[in-house]
């Protein structure tokens, strides 16, 4: 839920900043001339229909001051806006919880690692294998239910078969995956470009 709010908050922030930038640019361009000439602020206001908008908002605010159905619509709108603002604040300010991969827990003390260094260890192990020209591993820590995963793609030269590289890569990473309780997925592919040769 928080992850979704984070994405929404970032999207809204980007859209608002973009709109602000475009508006600023428009104002800068239309401030070149004065009076009511082509590139003047009154002309920009006409393009944006601001006088008509002012009238409509003025009428709405007049109606808002009197009790009745419009007031309830405004209350609901205000409450919705407050709720939306609160949700966007949660999305923008909620701390990102770091997910770690736990190696051992004993007596309340934990030994854990961040996913990135584990992936780099896996890359280093794979790149030491004969025939492997490039390796890319990624580690996903476990969520609430289920195990985490260690996925690796090993590129190899044309001299070796993918099945052989897959087998040796799996053997090289098995102990690392087992130690951290990660599901291991290894794929081998013939290298392209500079990854074709050892």
């Amino acid at each position, binding site marked *: 839920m928080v992850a979704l709010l984070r994405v929404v908050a970032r999207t809204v922030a980007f859209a608002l900043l973009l709109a602000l930038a475009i508006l600023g640019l428009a104002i800068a361009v239309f401030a070149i001339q004065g009076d009511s000439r082509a590139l003047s602020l009154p002309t920009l206001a006409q393009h944006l229909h601001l006088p008509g908008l002012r009238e409509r908002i003025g009428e709405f605010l007049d109606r808002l001051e009197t009790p009745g159905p419009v007031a309830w619509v405004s209350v609901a709108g205000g409450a919705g806006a407050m709720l939306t603002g609160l949700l966007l604040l949660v999305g923008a300010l909620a701390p990102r919880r770091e997910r*770690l991969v736990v*190696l*051992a827990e004993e*007596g*309340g*003390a*934990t*030994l*854990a*690692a*961040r996913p*990135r*260094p*584990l992936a*780099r*260890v896996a890359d*280093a192990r794979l790149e030491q294998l004969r025939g492997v020209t490039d390796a890319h591993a990624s580690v996903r820590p476990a969520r609430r239910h289920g195990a985490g995963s260690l996925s690796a793609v090993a590129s190899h030269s044309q001299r070796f078969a993918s099945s052989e590289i897959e087998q040796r890569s799996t053997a090289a990473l098995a102990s690392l995956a087992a130690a951290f309780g990660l599901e291991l997925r290894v794929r081998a592919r013939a290298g392209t470009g500079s990854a074709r040769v050892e």
Partner: protein
Amino acid sequence: MASLAVPGVVDLDAGSSGAYVTLAEGERLPGVTAVAVPDGRYAVTLNVVARMVPLEPLAEAVRAHVQRAANAAGLVAELGPVDVVVADVVAV
């Protein structure tokens, strides 16, 4: 900072946003956080940058060094669990 004396530990890591820091007697300790636990002790977490060495013996060595440092400072009663987080590994 006792953990930096452990072979295999290259550095301590304060995190990308500098969140893992503790202030102690005016000194800034990056990579170290101490959290009070219900029994009155403090759980210490060390974010280390390690060489490519076996991690369990490394963690045990770090904990032993921290324990010795706490003994020397007379803080052994306040020292709670010591968590070791491998923040990064280096190949040197």
